[in-house]
């Protein structure tokens, strides 16, 4: 772990978080401004505030704003889930992807597409139920992890390994079902697995927000109680914290955050792994600042990724989830290389 001077970061964290908020807001506005036609930022602001002509209102409110908003929610949610997992397991490789939640969701989607298609490969039900299938799959995935681990769920690394095992099985089943399935089903499933923020409507955003906001509040609440440094079971108990039970709670919150984040947009990769590390390098080790920082960076990464695919690949819709690493990774490597000078 990279140690930091606590006094320095404690005073700088609010400033850094404000800068990150502004950066995310600017990026989100540009996300609305860019597209098949350029809408100047002041027009975007006018439309959002309720004034603006009809065409621009339609483009902004129905096409562009929804994808930016869902990108903020989903990217932020995944990042916070990753933050909680990395803190509670003390494992820098922990991420929402290793809990079995995302692969469970993917399996739910593939089974939904396979089971509810008729002989001519058209869905017999509406595609709007796909997120429901994803959510059910994700819930079953994490339930399997907890059930299988049983009493071993008190051990953080064991839980991660159970998550990896369940995830691997689900992922492989998805792979096989996609290989043998018809091309329509394969590409529809591939879309979910890559993670795309387009084609989201306001109802779906409302559902996501309604579920996500309480979870984020809960995440903030548990973060204040997260053991500050490398606390072992005995010292935890001595400060009145039942670590195993607490750890289960944190796992459950992280799993729920992940499931809600991926339901409508699909398996956005890398954000949940990278954003918490970036946050740690930028704002230091304070828990609350870490959660807020992770949310902002996760949102930034996904909004940025969506912007990149729109600018580079328009008019083809490339899923934003494929390029999330491109937004965060170079900066992360730069930080890793420059921060070491401050190492103690």
């Amino acid at each position, binding site marked *: *772990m*990279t140690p930091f001077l606590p006094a320095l970061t404690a005073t700088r964290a609010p400033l850094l978080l404000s800068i990150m908020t502004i950066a995310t807001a600017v990026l989100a506005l540009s996300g609305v401004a860019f597209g098949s036609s350029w809408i100047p930022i002041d027009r975007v602001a006018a439309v959002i505030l309720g004034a603006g002509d009809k065409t621009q209102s339609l483009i902004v409110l129905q096409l562009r704003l929804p994808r930016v908003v869902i990108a903020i929610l989903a990217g932020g949610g995944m990042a916070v889930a990753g933050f909680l997992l990395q803190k509670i397991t003390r*494992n*820098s*490789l*922990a991420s929402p992807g*290793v809990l079995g939640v995302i692969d469970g969701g993917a399996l739910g989607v593939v089974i939904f597409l396979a089971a509810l298609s008729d002989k001519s490969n058209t869905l017999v039900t509406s595609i709007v139920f796909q997120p429901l299938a994803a959510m059910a799959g994700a819930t079953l995935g994490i339930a399997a992890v907890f059930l*299988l*681990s*049983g*009493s*071993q769920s008190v051990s953080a*690394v*064991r839980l*991660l*390994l*159970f998550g*990896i*095992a*369940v*995830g*691997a*099985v689900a*992922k*492989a*089943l998805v*792979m*096989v079902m996609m*290989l*043998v399935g018809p091309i329509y089903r394969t590409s529809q499933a591939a879309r979910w697995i*890559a993670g795309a923020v387009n084609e989201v409507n306001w109802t779906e955003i409302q559902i996501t927000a309604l579920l996500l906001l309480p979870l984020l509040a809960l995440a903030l609440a548990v973060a204040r109680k997260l053991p500050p440094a490398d606390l072992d079971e005995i010292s935890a108990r001595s400060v009145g914290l039942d670590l195993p039970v607490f750890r289960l709670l944190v796992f459950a919150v992280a799993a729920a955050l992940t499931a809600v984040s991926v339901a409508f947009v699909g398996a956005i*990769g*890398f954000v949940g*792994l*990278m954003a918490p*590390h970036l946050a740690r390098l930028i704002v230091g080790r304070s828990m609350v600042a870490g959660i807020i920082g992770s949310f902002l960076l996760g949102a930034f990464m996904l909004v940025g990724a969506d912007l990149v695919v729109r600018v580079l*690949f328009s008019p*083809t819709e*490339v*899923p934003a989830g*494929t*390029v*999330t*690493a*491109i937004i965060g*990774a*170079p900066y*992360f*490597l730069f930080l*890793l*290389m420059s*921060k*070491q000078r401050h*190492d103690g």
Partner: protein
Amino acid sequence: MTVPRARSARQSFAVTIAGLSALLITAMLVSVTVGYRLYGLDQLYHAVFAFDGSETATVLVNLRLPRAILAPMVGAGLGVAGVLVQTLSRNRIASPDTLGLNAGASLAVVLASATLGITSLTGLSLVAALGALLTSMLVFAIAAGAGGISPIRIVLIGVTIAGLGQSVVQLILTSNEAQMQNLLFWLAGSFVDRPMALAINGLPFIAAGAAIAFALVRPLDALQADDATAVSLGVPVSLVRIGCFLAISLLSGAAVAMAGPVSFVGLVVPHAARRLAGQRHGPLMLAAALIGAIYTTLADVLARFVIYPVEAPVGAVTAVVGGLVLVLLLRGRAA
């Protein structure tokens, strides 16, 4: 976890190794004889020692035999590399994928195929080896630039590079979908249609990687706990890490060149091996090599039947089998 081994423990370990070796030979024989068509051992004997150019002999020698030899090489390499990665990073959920070598190899293959039009298997495996090599150098250089290859840095830089590589692969794949269809099977990992030359070319790299790994047995034992202990025992920590890194690059670079990115082997095999052989690296890596070899060989056989008559990507089979095995292993330790 482990108790110091008495003589009886050593003997029982020898029995374990003998049992695993017997299992491996059986698995290899099954791999040669069982598939879309069944052959007898006598036919195999004739095909190898009295090759007559018949269809049976040709299938056995040119199609079945190479994969029965390639699969255990890849599995053994990945098994040992997995142990090394988990010790180097002190992280039980790390695997050779964590260091980004598979992603680098995939990126090189996709790039070469998109820009240079390379489609032959031999060409692709050469490119994959090159990609893995360049990636390991890149990861190493960045880690060194960031102040030394400490466990945490290696892992963080590795996953970052892996994520970047995968992103670019996805981008290229989505932008020329039709052209890339034939690469998807390579990207899932497979032992189908590999020429024997691939195994022969891969052998020196696997051997060199294994030699380095087994030369490092004692320092690795010391490094397992923490740096301070290792230093106090007189272990040249940085040097050992560099050697370890080199061995991982050789082993998993050769593996990805021979079979494409086969997932999950490097993650689950070390856990199974630790169960059988304990924490000391000598027995541990020996067991990991054998278990890895058996695992991929049997997975390759299974891949022929999962979606019969088409072959499933072996990566999918290793993941399902490995996932179930991991659950059983973890549950077995519950008491």
